């Protein structure tokens, strides 16, 4: 049984059909990346899983149970943490407070325990340790991304949804973010990763899906996708080489 399974899911924003009959699945322990250009429906897929957007049709199963009709607060309590695009760090709270609130989905743990766990997060995210008592809005984009991912991990999720963690960052930050994804994977958390940066996404993933205008077009192992000329040409930014070959 897959950890998460989408069956023929469609999502509409008014007249626009953002997802058209998408079916995909992620097994426990896997890192799966969702690739595609702007407006392909990558973020919408994650929003549908975490309950921010209601599918117009189709079904989403988590550990075999349907998520239909559940809101984001209930879904995160079941063990699905969503780190949305744009980081969404609370601007008026400190980095440490932001990370502590990541445990809001877990019941029956004391403030002291949450405090200790948040402290421990700075071992994994040592770059932001000096800024832990600084307000969120004063952090740089890269620091905010670290806070956002750490906050997601505080939920102790079985499934972590990461939306474009590398977007807009310098290569040195991007490689740091991906080192952390590798570490999360090593610790056994299942990850569904949305990326525009196909090279980075495929470098950490077990499998990949490629979306185009709301539809799944190709799926496969990273090297299969990477070596599929059509995929590279159309979705992964390999225009130059595809053109040269033609």
């Amino acid at each position, binding site marked *: 049984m897959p950890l998460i399974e989408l069956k023929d899911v469609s999502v509409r924003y008014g007249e626009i059909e953002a997802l058209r009959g998408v079916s995909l699945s992620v097994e426990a322990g896997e890192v799966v990346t969702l690739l595609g250009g702007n407006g392909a429906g990558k973020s919408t897929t994650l929003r549908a899983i*975490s309950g*921010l957007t209601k599918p117009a049709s189709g079904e989403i199963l988590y550990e075999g149970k349907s998520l239909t009709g559940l*809101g*984001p*607060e209930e879904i*995160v*309590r079941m063990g699905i*943490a*969503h780190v*949305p695009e744009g980081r*969404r760090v*609370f*601007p*008026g*709270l400190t980095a440490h*407070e932001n990370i*502590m*609130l*990541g445990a*809001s*989905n*877990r019941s029956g743990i004391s*403030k002291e325990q*949450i405090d200790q766990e948040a402290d421990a997060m700075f071992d994994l995210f040592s770059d932001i340790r000096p800024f832990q008592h600084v*307000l969120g*809005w*004063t952090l740089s984009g890269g620091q905010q991304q670290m806070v956002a991912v750490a*906050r997601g991990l505080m*939920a102790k999720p079985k499934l972590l949804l990461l939306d474009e963690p590398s977007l807009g960052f310098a290569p040195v930050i991007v490689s740091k973010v991906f080192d952390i994804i590798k570490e999360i994977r090593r610790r056994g958390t299942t990850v569904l990763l949305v990326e525009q940066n196909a090279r980075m996404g495929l470098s950490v993933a077990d499998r990949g899906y490629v979306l185009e205008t709301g539809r799944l077009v190709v799926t496969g192992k990273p090297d299969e996708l990477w070596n599929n000329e059509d995929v590279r040409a159309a979705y992964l930014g390999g225009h130059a080489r595809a053109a040269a070959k033609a």
Partner: protein
Amino acid sequence: MDMVFQLLFQGIGIGSVYALVALGFVLIFRATNVVNFAQGEFSMVAAFLMVIFSVDLEWPYWISFLLSLGGMAIYGALFNLGVYFPLRHRTYLPVIISTIGASILVSNSTLALYGPQPQVLQPLLDFPGFNIGTVYLDAQYLLIIGLTVVLVAFQYWFFEHTLLGKKLQATSQDKEMASLLGIPVATMIMLTFVYSAMIGGLAGILVAPILFVSIHMGGTIALKAFAATIIGGFGDVAGAIIGGLALGVIETFGAAYVSVPYKDGFAFLVLVAFLVFRPQGIFGERVAEKA
């Protein structure tokens, strides 16, 4: 010089009432991004509850006081369910209109029940006050100032040192993200309305023995508190308190040294000055937009 201290004392006393109501304004504004135009009615309803319990039913004063505050907690919850909750996914405009409608409904219902004549409420404490030198310290003003200090200290502790306080702050800053973390957003907003109604109600009960209890008291207090909020800055709790105190002192001195009939005018003169020269208030926004 004694005159100055006397006026300062009275100004801070009445300013504390404005500060409490302004605090309620700011909390609801931060949680819902909407100015609650029925905020003044929180004070008015609480004062009338006090009249019902202590004057009409002749129950003991402190029991009436606690019952009125409890009643305000229920009123805040019902207000949230009836006025805000059904419109929570809409823009701010329908919500504002809804609060204006609630204000009209509540004050006219009170008018229908109690008629236009003002009610009188006795002071909470038995002793009237005492002198320090030639400065007379009225007990009711002392009580107002004391309770305001306690409430502000409690609120600071609550928001800065408890997890629930942090969750409330998170909800006011980004509701969608808060819900993604599993923070129960609807419950957080409910708590905000209940607390806001209670401190607004407390202000109404405290000020009732100084003013008369009438259906118009809510409007007057709300306008002053609104001015205090503009002066202090809308996003800031400290600003609401400083703004309220400043307004109380300004209008008290204005009434004493310039003109009594224009007492209310000074508050709005200051309001207009701030809107023209410093619209973000004394403190501005704590969180700036990053370029």
